[in-house]
């Protein structure tokens, strides 16, 4: 420290959150006696306006030049207090937080004496460290009013349209050849029973518009990139650089008129994934009737390169020589809306072995009037209509062997289908085997009552196994009551949970986002920042953040529009300068730091001296640890500051 420090310590009771297990009075007393501490007080809620005013007052009246707040995690309120301190005229980096809640009063709430002792150590460390803190400035950076939306399902589309409405440019990137995501496969969606392909009524006069055709393909502000995936993302909020790789469609979108001649002459047939393998498709195909972009696509893996489609095409739109392309996009914000996958129940309940054991997605395809069976439910084994249909709930959810979480929407999926089946054919027997029924959204409980009134049988228990017996499926069940029973069915439908989509882990690494314990993308904070992520400028929405239904996905998508608009509308973002800094007199020019930096933020601008590009530096400090001459330091995490924290936390009382 170069000057006399006058440290103010503010200990928070946080209602009872801290006060219950930590003796706040003793802690404040202890803090007041620490060397360098001029003033110490306790507050009920330091983050409140009165708490913050108390800090600001103390700074002025007691001429404090360092502030320590002992309260919750800095992840919550570091910015709050930095702002408060700055408003009182003190540089925000002369502020230090002591985490005595998440790291002390909460985990140790059964040991109040030891919690108080530990809190003293934590506060001592913060006080010691604060002595060595230095003023750090800020800089303003411009924000590119362009957004990258990854994923063109229901949520991604909603987000893209919303952002375009705000006047921003949008790049909508989708890895499939068509937009729509899973919603287009679902047939009718609850509770409004509208067609999954037309989910959102968006026009001012509330006409339904199938698949957003007008907005997504004709809006000049939205650029759609199908068959595209993001390969890398660099930069920071306001100026991200995204590299996307576009796989070849082999069919020119601008020339294809979707006449279907290529499909007619194609000799190759494969299982149709879109229709859950209920039918087959050709190697060159239109994903579904209302596909957007409305163009054929060639599946290079199954194509035998016979070339017949090329000859058949009247507009000469097909070329087998197309290669993958990369494009670099400059954007200011990123929205991630990559959706989910249905849990794959292979190996469970004879799925994969017995043809008549299917999933709800397959059933949805059957029930879709424009689907492979034209709306008729059939037994895949013999094509006949099933009279007895059973549904097993929670397959791949609430299960310690697969996924512990509840997938939220499956009850409604089953109820939706059960109700439709009964309404289409009242004589059919529908049995739903469940653990709990959770119709938690608006108008959802009514589905349940309807189903019961229509005669759907609800059995609470565990499905043991499925076996084939004389052409019928026998489902053995352990009822909750303790009885064992058997349900005979013609068709068994597994209601599978929602899982993170394939490739999410890799994407999270590309974008540097965290995953939750359940494998979905993690939000910054469930209440304070449910749409933000740990990366400033990247927002998430829809099922990739966790299982949810369509109304919720849309709500979250609209939320991303709001969040992303903030930096893009203000046009600038503040970057603090807590970055690496080089002492040129010590630098030997070995470039170890430049090599170690994961963001290429260090350049050897002149030989023998490293220079930090502050805008690109993300403040990790790896360079500082790698330097053989100890010439490069990370502001706010300099050696002296880290040593002080270590010494304080051990010395304590």
């Amino acid at each position: 420290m170069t000057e006399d420090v006058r440290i103010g310590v503010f200990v928070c009771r946080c209602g009872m959150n801290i006060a219950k297990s930590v003796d706040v009075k003793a802690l404040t007393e202890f803090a007041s006696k620490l060397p360098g501490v001029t003033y110490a007080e306790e507050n009920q809620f330091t983050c409140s306006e009165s708490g913050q005013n108390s800090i600001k007052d103390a700074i002025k009246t007691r001429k404090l030049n360092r502030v320590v707040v002992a309260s919750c995690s800095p992840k919550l309120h570091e910015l709050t207090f930095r702002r408060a301190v700055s408003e009182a005229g003190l540089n925000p980096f002369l502020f230090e937080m002591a985490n005595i809640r998440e790291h002390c009063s909460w985990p140790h709430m059964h040991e109040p004496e030891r919690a108080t002792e530990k809190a003293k150590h934590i506060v001592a460390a913060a006080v010691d460290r604060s002595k060595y803190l230095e003023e750090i400035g800020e800089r303003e950076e411009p924000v590119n009013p362009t957004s990258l939306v990854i994923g063109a399902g229901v949520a991604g589309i909603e987000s893209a349209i919303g952002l375009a409405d705000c006047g921003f440019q949008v790049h909508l990137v989708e890895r499939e050849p068509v937009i729509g995501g899973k919603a287009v496969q679902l047939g009718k969606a609850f509770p409004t029973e509208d067609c999954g392909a037309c989910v959102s009524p968006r026009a001012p006069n509330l006409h339904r518009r199938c698949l957003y055709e007008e907005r997504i393909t004709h809006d000049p502000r939205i650029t759609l990139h199908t068959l595209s995936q993001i390969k890398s993302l660099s930069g920071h909020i306001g100026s991200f650089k995204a590299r996307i790789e576009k796989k070849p469609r082999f069919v020119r979108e601008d020339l294809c008129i979707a006449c279907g001649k290529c499909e007619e002459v194609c000799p190759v047939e494969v299982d149709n994934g879109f229709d859950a393998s209920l039918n087959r498709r050709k190697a060159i195909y239109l994903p579904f009737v209302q596909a957007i972009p409305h163009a054929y696509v060639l599946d290079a893996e199954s194509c035998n390169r016979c070339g017949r489609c090329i000859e058949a095409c009247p507009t000469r739109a097909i070329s087998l020589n197309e290669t993958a392309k990369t494009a670099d996009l400059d954007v200011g914000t990123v929205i991630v809306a990559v959706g989910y996958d249905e849990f794959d129940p292979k190996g469970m309940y004879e799925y994969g072995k017995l043809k008549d054991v299917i999933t709800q997605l397959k059933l949805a395809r059957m029930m879709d009037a424009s689907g492979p069976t034209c709306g008729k439910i059939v037994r895949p084994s013999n094509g006949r209509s099933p009279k007895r249909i059973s549904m097993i709930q929670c397959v791949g959810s609430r299960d310690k062997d697969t996924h512990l979480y509840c997938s939220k929407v499956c009850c409604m999926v089953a109820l939706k289908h059960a109700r439709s089946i009964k309404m289409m054919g009242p004589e059919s027997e529908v049995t739903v085997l469940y653990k709990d029924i959770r119709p938690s959204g608006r108008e959802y409980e009514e589905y349940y009552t309807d189903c019961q009134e229509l005669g759907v049988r609800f059995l609470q228990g565990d499905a043991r196994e499925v076996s084939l017996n004389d052409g019928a499926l026998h489902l053995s069940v352990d009822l909750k009551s303790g009885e064992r029973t058997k349900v005979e069915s013609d068709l068994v439908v597994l209601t599978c949970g929602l899982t993170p989509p394939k490739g999410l882990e890799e994407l999270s690494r590309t974008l540097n986002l965290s995953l939750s314990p359940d494998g979905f993308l993690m939000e910054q904070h469930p209440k304070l920042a449910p749409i933000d992520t740990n990366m400033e400028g990247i927002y998430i929405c829809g099922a990739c953040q966790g299982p949810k239904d369509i109304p919720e996905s849309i709500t979250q998508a609209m939320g991303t529009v709001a969040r992303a608009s903030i930096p893009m509308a203000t046009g600038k973002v503040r970057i603090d300068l807590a970055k690496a800094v080089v002492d040129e007199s010590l630098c030997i020019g070995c470039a170890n730091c430049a090599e170690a930096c994961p963001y290429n933020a260090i350049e050897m601008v002149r030989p023998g001296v490293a220079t930090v590009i502050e805008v690109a530096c993300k403040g990790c400090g790896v360079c500082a640890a790698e330097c053989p001459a100890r010439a490069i330091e990370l502001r706010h995490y300099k050696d002296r500051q880290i040593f002080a924290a270590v010494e304080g936390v051990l010395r304590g009382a």
Partner: protein
Amino acid sequence: MSNANDFEPSIVAFCCWWCAYGAADLAGISKLDYPTNVRIVRVPCTGRVDALHILRAFEEGADGVIVAGCLKDGGCHYVDGNMKAERRVTGLKRSLEAIGLGDQRLEMYFMSAGMPDKFVQSVTQFTEGIRKLGPSPIGRK
């Protein structure tokens, strides 16, 4: 000399801001129990943690030092700072062994911000191990 049964180890845990610190936060939010002996020092990335920082902790009386960072294979929020830290810790463990402190008093753990259980399990297991080893022969300065 204090009774061996009363020994309460002092453990310093260098936790990376993104993952380990977050996991510790979540452990607190979930009211999970772990030994109070563990004191966290926040760093932006475990890659920032220098051999000198760890040595200073032992000098100041730490009985055990933990370095906790993001999951390996791409989990690090600064790409691979955690891997650099791992290499550094491995090297330092050998030095500590050579000077007679043993290599069990320094350990590195990997976790994500969404893994409070891993945090709790790691620090608890480590603390109990140090408790059995006894106080650091270095003591306080």
